[in-house]
């Protein structure tokens, strides 16, 4: 079996696509781009194949994945149902990473300490990253997971986040949607985050 090539800087983001998560989603895009990584979400991948097949292909392509389980909870829309998409994609990733540990590393993220031990006790012993539901928490933990001492500072990432947030309406208006998770918006947000990295480099180089 020939294995697909792995993109060494690619990070698959397994996150909820809901309005309460938009700020943290934006923080992940800004933070990962600042740290020199390329985030991917399932909706950013074009193609007509089944969604699950696209997700699996994406997991195989990405060297890393982040599984944010902070919003694994009961949906309020009746009938009340647990949200299983993120644990399902985590399960797929774990299988892949166990088979090919040199090709994939996954990270577990939560907003509360010890919640994973309660919801998925089989994962005990796996490192978890706690963002406490804040933008600053996401950026701080991204540095812990992906950077050593030389990475960009949290304040410099926060500055980019603040500017992107300030201009978000304009970006959405141009894209003709209010959905931050739409493929075109995801691409625009990745671009402005990378443009900020470029500006930062130029400022430092002066």
């Amino acid at each position: 079996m020939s294995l697909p090539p792995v993109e060494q800087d690619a990070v698959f983001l397994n996150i909820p696509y809901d309005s309460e998560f938009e700020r943290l989603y934006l923080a992940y895009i800004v933070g990962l781009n600042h740290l020199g990584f390329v985030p991917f979400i399932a909706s950013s991948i074009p193609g007509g194949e089944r969604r699950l097949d696209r997700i699996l292909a994406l997991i195989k392509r990405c060297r890393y994945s982040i599984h944010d389980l902070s919003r694994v909870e009961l949906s309020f829309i009746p009938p009340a149902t647990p949200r299983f998409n993120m644990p399902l994609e985590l399960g797929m990733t774990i299988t892949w990473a166990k088979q090919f540990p040199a090709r994939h590393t996954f990270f577990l993220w939560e907003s509360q300490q010890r919640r994973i031990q309660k919801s998925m006790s089989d994962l005990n012993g796996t490192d978890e990253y706690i963002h406490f539901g804040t933008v600053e928490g996401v950026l701080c933990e991204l540095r812990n997971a992906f950077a050593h001492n030389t990475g960009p500072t949290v304040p410099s990432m926060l500055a980019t986040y603040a500017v992107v947030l300030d201009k978000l309406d304009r970006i959405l208006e141009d894209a003709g949607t209010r959905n931050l998770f739409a493929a075109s918006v995801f691409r625009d947000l990745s671009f402005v985050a990378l443009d900020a990295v470029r500006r930062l480099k130029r400022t430092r180089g002066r």
Partner: protein
Amino acid sequence: MQRPAHSTPTIDATEKRIRRLRVPRTRQNQLKSIMDEGWEKLEAICVPFEIDNAIQQHLLELGYQVSLDQIRQELNRPLIDILTKLREKSDTPLVQPTGPEREQDVSTAG
């Protein structure tokens, strides 16, 4: 667990990543222009944001007791709000739905 080997991105690596995004040149220019405005605004307000302590001290010397929050409110610029609220837990939506498109676009989970 194996940790990723981080390297600070060079200009070249950043340019390569920008090319990989395949954003059309015209859209790149539009986005750059939008962000230019944002960065200029940030630079303009960063100075008052950093010196608000000094303003408070000065007002105190003049006999006025004013909180930092009041000073920031007086400056009345949305970016300051963003900067001060960044450290708070925030799960409120960034955008409000404007029509049926929202329901079509957003699935319930990743």
